[in-house]
């Protein structure tokens, strides 16, 4: 892993009226890694992603992406990122190929047809390329959605709950895609409420709970947070689920429903 930092967040706060969603978040994401932001509904995951992708201004604190400040240099940040939001942001009336060509055209790229054809093949959508997206399954939409985010090869990719609402098969497909991207040097910040997803994909995991990062490290480092005594009696590694529930405690219901 390189020592370069792709995303640096310091003391980020955000409130909606008197509801404090982020209460001082610090994050550091090494370039080329997969970083999972893990948390329950309403923990503030989407709020962080929206601030990092210049859709929302933080109340306080700083965030830089690829060396550019998201608040003061947002246009430059948008050049190096791509956002895949919680719901597949695809145009239902257009075909899969037209969706890809539109993004390529907006990014003012040449060879739009070739770009679209390559991505359609890469995401196994060639057969459906000329069909309207309205006829696509949930998994196909998500694949198209991610494919659209890759146009222009942005070095930093935000995936906000990329597998929520997908069936297990589609989920595995998305995982394979994310791994491949990171293999090519793309920095991926993904949010998830699925513990196994973080466990499977991420180089580093941060646990966001009630607007604060309460744990941050590799899976092995997080594992050390459990009391070692347990290892003597149980001959298995603690699952991330156990770690998560241990450190967030049982009062996380309070945060539910305040999702932005």
């Amino acid at each position, binding site marked *: 892993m390189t020592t370069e930092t792709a995303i640096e967040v310091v003391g980020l706060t955000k409130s909606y009226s008197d509801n404090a969603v982020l209460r001082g978040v610090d994050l550091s994401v090494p370039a080329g890694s997969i970083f999972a932001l893990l948390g329950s509904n309403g923990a503030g995951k989407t709020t962080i992603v*929206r601030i990092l*992708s*210049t*859709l*929302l*201004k933080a109340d306080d604190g700083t965030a830089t992406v690829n060396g550019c400040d998201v608040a003061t240099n947002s*246009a430059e940040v*948008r*050049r190096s*990122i*791509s*956002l895949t*939001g*919680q*719901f*597949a*942001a*695809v*145009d*239902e*009336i*257009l075909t899969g190929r*037209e969706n890809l060509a*539109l*993004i390529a*055209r*907006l*990014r*003012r790229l040449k060879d739009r047809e070739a770009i679209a054809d390559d991505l359609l093949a890469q995401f196994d959508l060639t057969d459906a390329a000329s069909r*309207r997206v309205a006829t696509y399954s949930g998994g196909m939409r998500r694949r198209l959605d991610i494919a*659209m985010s890759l146009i*222009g090869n942005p070095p930093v990719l935000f995936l906000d709950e990329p597998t929520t609402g997908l069936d297990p098969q589609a989920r595995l497909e998305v995982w394979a895609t994310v791994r491949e991207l990171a293999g090519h040097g793309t920095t991926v910040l993904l949010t998830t409420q699925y513990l196994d997803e973080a466990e499977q994909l991420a180089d580093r995991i941060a646990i966001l709970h009630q607007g604060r990062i309460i744990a941050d490290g590799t899976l092995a480092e997080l594992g050390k947070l459990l009391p070692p005594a347990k290892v003597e009696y149980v001959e298995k590694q603690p699952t991330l689920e156990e770690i998560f529930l241990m450190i967030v405690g049982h009062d996380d219901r309070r945060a539910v429903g305040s999702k932005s």
Partner: protein
Amino acid sequence: MRTDVASNTIALLGRSLRHILRSPDTIITTALTPIAMLSLFVYVLGGAIRTGSGRYVDYLLPGILLITIASGIAYTALRLFTDVSTGIFERLQSMPIARSALLWGHVLTSLVANLISLVLVVLVALLMGFRSGAGLLAWLAVLGILVLFTLALTWLAVIPGLTAKSVDGAGAFSYPLVFLPFISSAFVPTSGMPGPVRWFAEHQPVTSIVNTIRDLYAEQPVGNNGWIAIAWCAGTLLVAYTLAMHTYHRKIS
């Protein structure tokens, strides 16, 4: 940056024109209601309405054109609402493109779609006996006023498009606009209305716009009405654009 705005706007205009091409019902529905109203008033109610010496369809058409636009711009709110609710809005806002291009793409789409609907309505009116000796300049003046009116109402439609919580909410704002022509000189002369209603009818924007278009078609001098109509349209456009941009900037920051 300027070329970005133009290039991005054209790309997004192409996208929503393709939407219209694939579901032409948006244009047909927009034209159908005014055409039905035109038929109802010309063939059923019009016989009992005294408007002076000319054909009633000639009297009626300008108001019907405004109703066409007022119902057509609801689709701008709906299209924008769909983009916001599906996440396409956020996707585009997080891309390195001119951020206002999405709004301009929708506004220009509204202009094109409404002009097509207007042509359909005028063609039907011609079949019903509408005639005008107006020259090219007068037709261009009518076109100019209708374009200004469309732009003003479209920017107004941008506001619910960005802020609505449901599809119904996004569309509902246009109902009062569709009904405004009924309390104006669009269907009957204002002189027969009781005091306060008459005052309202004579001072609301639709009457001056309708009278201006009517005079242009009848080859009559437009007089002060023309300036009042332009002032209403330009004023509404300015206020609507400012409010829409304010709403937009609040949404993206």
